[in-house]
């Protein structure tokens, strides 16, 4: 818990996820991101007079999938409702959403936070249509409206206020995103808005039963942003409470660049959304057969896979949780692990050099996976075997990896082509060693006088002279032998 001794923090999150169907929720327009404004619209998603919505079948199965993955019970009957309000990005003057009969409710998500598992209850999961986008014109009294995003299927996942700290909120989002990615139902790209998060947060004196007055935080564009906004809000609320003030229930906009939030202007009136059943859409029965067939398409989810990686591969906690985060990475790991029986070494390479190469090369690309690096599991394993056999050093392996990505050659080919094999010929090494010893009289003397650090320096000199093509272990042994202190 991040709170001070005096207060407890209570956080609930509302996550909006765009589902990655080909077409929109109620019409055939494409959901592709980044098109020219208003080129992916039709009478239905523009809400033109007379146009009518028809529900996309795939949206229902995607939503059921998510509902099941967060352990919700799936409603046997669901319907859509209209949420009425005026806003220029909402072309019908109402949003088609779900009010009293959401698709799924009463679930829970187990997250790993601070090294322990914790259950966060899920209140509900419901479907709705996304709104359009407003672009504010600098220095002008006007805004521009692009309706391309209108009608993109959205799933709202609402948690109970079970989250105790900004870090927990971060861990919850990480877990949820991993699940959604495993399910293949969303890109979960916060920058492009395919995953959005609002937070409700309140503080109360420790031991007090009833919750404090909460504020709602909006406009966080990264998980880190969510965490920062919550931390800022805790400090802000704490200060007010400490000064004997009262928290005002309000919505606050996070400004990531400024690192602070500000109150949205107070509304002219309280919102009254006047929900009522959408008469243009019929109710939907969600029978056991449908739920059963969707259930069959759910893969092993990250939390379970994590447990299995700990027990089957004996991976360290950190490596396991990093690898399971992404389904493709975890699949890659397991493929390698069937070929090479030292899983922790594979895990080290994946969480280290491989992921860092991946982030370097693909950080800005959507939907890129670890496979896009082009390192086949067989090649990675071949490289690890070369190390085992002493053919190459770890250091050389690190140099080979980018070559493998660039040239798509096997490690063996690269090593041969570039002559990167380790010098295993002791005579050849001995010559180099002798040279280093004779030109470094002072360190040699120091070593002989018991200064261990001098040895490391000398090893370094040898490695430098061999361009890393010597085994540090062997060099170490040979140096000690030669300097008479084995």
């Amino acid at each position: 818990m991040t709170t001070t001794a005096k207060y407890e923090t209570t956080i609930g999150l509302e996550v909006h996820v765009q589902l990655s169907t080909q077409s929109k929720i109620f019409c055939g327009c494409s959901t592709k991101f980044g098109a020219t404004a208003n080129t992916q619209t039709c009478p239905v998603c523009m809400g033109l007079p007379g146009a009518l919505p028809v529900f996309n079948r795939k949206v229902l199965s995607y939503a059921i999938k998510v509902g099941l993955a967060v352990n919700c019970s799936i409603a046997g009957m669901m319907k859509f409702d209209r949420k009425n309000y005026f806003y220029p990005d909402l072309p019908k003057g109402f949003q088609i959403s779900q009010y009293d009969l959401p698709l799924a409710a009463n679930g829970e998500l187990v997250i790993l936070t601070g090294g322990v598992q914790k259950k966060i209850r899920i209140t509900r999961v419901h479907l709705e249509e996304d709104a359009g986008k407003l672009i504010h014109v600098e220095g002008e009294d006007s805004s521009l409206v692009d309706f391309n995003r209108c009608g993109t299927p959205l799933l709202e996942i609402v948690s109970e206020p079970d989250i105790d700290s900004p870090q927990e909120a971060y861990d919850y989002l990480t877990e949820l995103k991993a699940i959604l990615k495993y399910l293949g139902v969303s890109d979960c790209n916060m920058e492009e808005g395919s995953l959005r998060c609002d937070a409700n947060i309140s503080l109360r004196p420790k031991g007090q039963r009833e919750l404090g007055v909460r504020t709602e935080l909006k406009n966080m564009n990264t998980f880190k942003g969510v965490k920062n906004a919550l931390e800022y809000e805790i400090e802000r609320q704490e200060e007010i409470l400490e000064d004997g003030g009262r928290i005002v229930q309000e919505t606050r906009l996070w400004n990531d660049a400024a690192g602070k939030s500000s109150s949205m202007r107070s509304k002219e009136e309280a919102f009254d959304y006047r929900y009522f059943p959408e008469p243009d859409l019929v109710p939907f029965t969600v029978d056991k057969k449908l739920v059963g067939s969707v259930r069959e398409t759910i893969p092993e989810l990250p939390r379970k896979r994590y447990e299995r990686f700990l027990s089957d591969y004996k991976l360290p906690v950190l490596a396991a949780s990093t690898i399971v985060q992404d389904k493709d990475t975890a699949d890659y790991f397991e493929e390698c692990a069937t070929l090479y029986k030292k899983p922790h070494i594979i895990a080290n390479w994946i969480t280290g050099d491989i992921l860092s190469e991946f982030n370097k090369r693909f950080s800005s690309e959507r939907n890129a996976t670890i496979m896009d690096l082009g390192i086949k599991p067989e090649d990675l394993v071949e490289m690890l075997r070369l190390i085992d056999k002493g053919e190459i050093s770890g250091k050389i392996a690190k140099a080979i990896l980018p070559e493998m990505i660039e040239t798509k050659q096997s490690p063996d080919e690269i090593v041969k082509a570039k002559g990167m094999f380790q010098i295993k010929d002791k005579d050849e090494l001995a010559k180099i060693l002798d040279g280093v010893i004779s030109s470094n009289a002072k360190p040699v003397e120091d070593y002989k006088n018991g200064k261990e650090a001098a040895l490391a320096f000398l090893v370094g000199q040898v490695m430098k002279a061999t361009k890393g093509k010597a085994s540090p272990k062997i060099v170490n042994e040979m140096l000690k032998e030669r300097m008479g202190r084995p």
Partner: protein
Amino acid sequence: MKKKIDVEYIANLARIRLNGKDIKSFSGQLDDVISYIEKLNSVDTKDTPPTTHPLPITNIFREDEVRESLSVEKVLANAPEKRDTSFKVPKVVEGE
């Protein structure tokens, strides 16, 4: 008679500006109508489910297939104001 409906408040929810005369005449007329429709309270509906659709149709879907969108010229043909391919509206202040 006690006023039943706060016409000004409701008109504001519905984003319709009313002048004083409208408010007065609508209040009277709508109070009459509301008094009339309150007759419904005499019907016992304790165990009656609501009917939202006149016919009991369920499960009407379309498949997830992309159809051609409207041409952007058609989309913007009726726009009161536009810029490039976007609709132009008075400045939207966040939170308004």
